[in-house]
């Protein structure tokens, strides 16, 4: 049983902020990890009528255990339909999916994502990561794309080591000129801040920061120059005690994705 009185950890904070991006009645493409926690939290709180879509084919499972991956039986347990993967993606291609969340190991100032490898040469990886999975596919498929991950200068470099998924490419009009469909990344969410992209230059810009985090701290956690919004920077709405309790007792009671790994 989890300690219900401990303060929210960064992963729980992240899950809550992501959940707030989900509007009721929307169709949500869910990737492995924190997006699952967020999707189920949204469904149990402010957005009970959303449809959760998983790439292995499961769609809208009834409340059950936290899936450990998007291929896990909990993604389709007692769900009204189980599709094959190509049809699950095709729903996005045809514009039926409203919002999708992409995880990243690295994200750059234009929202380009890396989940492949760390190092200078793909053939000689310093660290081999998972690869694309559905990451690249969703980046061109969902109507609204939100990037999710942890934030350090290494994870927010000026240039990613490998472009798994294209965000705003090289900024300005480059994404459109390259002929990409989809609306591009709308936001980047880390435990410390929520970022959007400048409407013209498409460079990453602070939207709101976790209480206690100043612009300067956010900048120190970033490997490129962040843009500052006009006026005061609002605080990100923090997780409520009710939602924290729901995560710990109902959504992820065994802490599959919301217990911080030991350092």
């Amino acid at each position, binding site marked *: 049983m989890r300690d219900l009185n401990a303060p929210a950890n960064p992963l729980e904070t992240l899950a809550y902020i992501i959940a707030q991006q989900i509007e009721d009645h929307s169709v949500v493409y869910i990737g492995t990890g924190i997006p699952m926690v967020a999707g189920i939290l949204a469904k149990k709180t402010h957005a009970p009528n959303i449809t959760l879509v998983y790439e292995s084919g499961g769609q809208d499972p009834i409340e059950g255990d936290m899936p450990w991956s998007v291929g*896990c*039986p909990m993604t389709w347990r007692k769900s009204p339909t*189980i599709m094959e993967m190509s049809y699950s993606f095709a729903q996005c291609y045809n514009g039926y999916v409203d919002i999708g969340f992409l995880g990243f190991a690295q994200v750059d100032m234009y929202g380009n994502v890396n989940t492949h490898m760390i190092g200078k040469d793909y053939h000689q990886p310093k660290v081999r990561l998972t690869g694309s999975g559905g990451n690249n596919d969703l980046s061109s498929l969902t109507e609204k794309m939100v990037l999710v991950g942890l934030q350090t200068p290494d994870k927010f470099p000026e240039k990613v080591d490998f472009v798994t998924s294209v965000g705003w490419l090289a900024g300005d009009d480059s994404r459109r000129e390259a002929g990409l469909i989809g609306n591009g990344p709308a936001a980047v969410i880390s435990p410390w801040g929520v970022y959007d992209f400048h409407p013209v230059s498409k460079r990453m810009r602070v939207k709101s920061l976790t209480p206690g985090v100043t612009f300067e701290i956010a900048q120190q956690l970033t490997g490129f120059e962040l843009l500052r919004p006009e006026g005061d920077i609002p605080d990100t709405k923090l997780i409520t005690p009710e939602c924290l309790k729901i995560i710990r007792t109902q959504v992820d009671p065994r802490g599959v994705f919301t217990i911080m790994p030991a350092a």
Partner: protein
Amino acid sequence: MKNCRPSKVMTAHEAVSRYVHDGDSVITGNYTEGLPFSLLFEIIRQRKKGLTYYSQSGSADVEFMVAGDCVDKLCTAFLHKWGGRTAGGMVERYQRAGKLQVEDYSNFTYNARLAAGANGYSFMPVLPSIMDSDVFKIRDYMGENKFGVVRCPFTGREIPVVPAANPDVCLLHVQRADKHGNAQHWGGLGSTVHACLASKTIIVSCEELVDFDVIKSSPHHTIVPGFRVSAVIEEPYGCHPSELPGYRNPDMTMLRFIDNSFSSDEGLRSMFDEWVYGLPDRASYIKHYIDVFGVESLNRYRARSYYSAPADYGVAFESGWDTYGQALLLGVDMAGLEQLIAEKGDLVDVN
């Protein structure tokens, strides 16, 4: 005519020695659930060499095949990160040592290669955002042939395409099959059906071998028709330690043991000596598991049943007469038909 379709039932050892050859391309049909570990262990045990291995959401299956020195080339869209943050998995060790070539696709583009293969097309269009990514730009063993670009004749747009994949051998583990190879699988299929239908030879292992009567009463579960299948192996626990709907969850005890084995190169080797090379087949693997971890551990992951409602496949047998007593095809009633017979007697065959 007498039903003379032969039984394809054999052991994993026979199937792998007969149908998997050095240098073949081999695909795991299962997406993430029901990974065909018994067949994979057999390939490693028979020390097959020079394989091109396809695994969309690669897990321990890829790590084992690479560590078994069976694989030269790997085609994948995702690889589970084994071995923790320090040790790393065999894939990255082999890749760094120049002993393994890896071609990375995304889920959709990997699946599209199989969909093209299954449909008999030579290529398949994919989504444009791939073109500006390094998935498109960085090529390994496929070089120029990893992606292509064509112009759509209807919109004039440039469209990236992927070449069809038709692997030599598909390994598939399912819940049940009959002796002719009709294989039934339910759950999160992912790209399983495309992987099977694109492949030239299909080897099926199943938890239970069932009568044809079971298959014909539930055709919606059959994902591969029997005539496409070359071998059927009744292999309980054939996908252990991965999960299978109706049978079991992933065996976390075994998965933790495997993960710990990555901590040194030697570790995976001694794990192989004990669990792969040291055991002749799956039955002895499960017996060994029980000896090491206990039968309670095995049973801890057993599924609780949740049955699907039966589907009613009944039809009304058609009558040639409508409710007004008219023969549908001839447009006459019984008296009219009798008159026709009288008039054209010799020509009307009422046999």
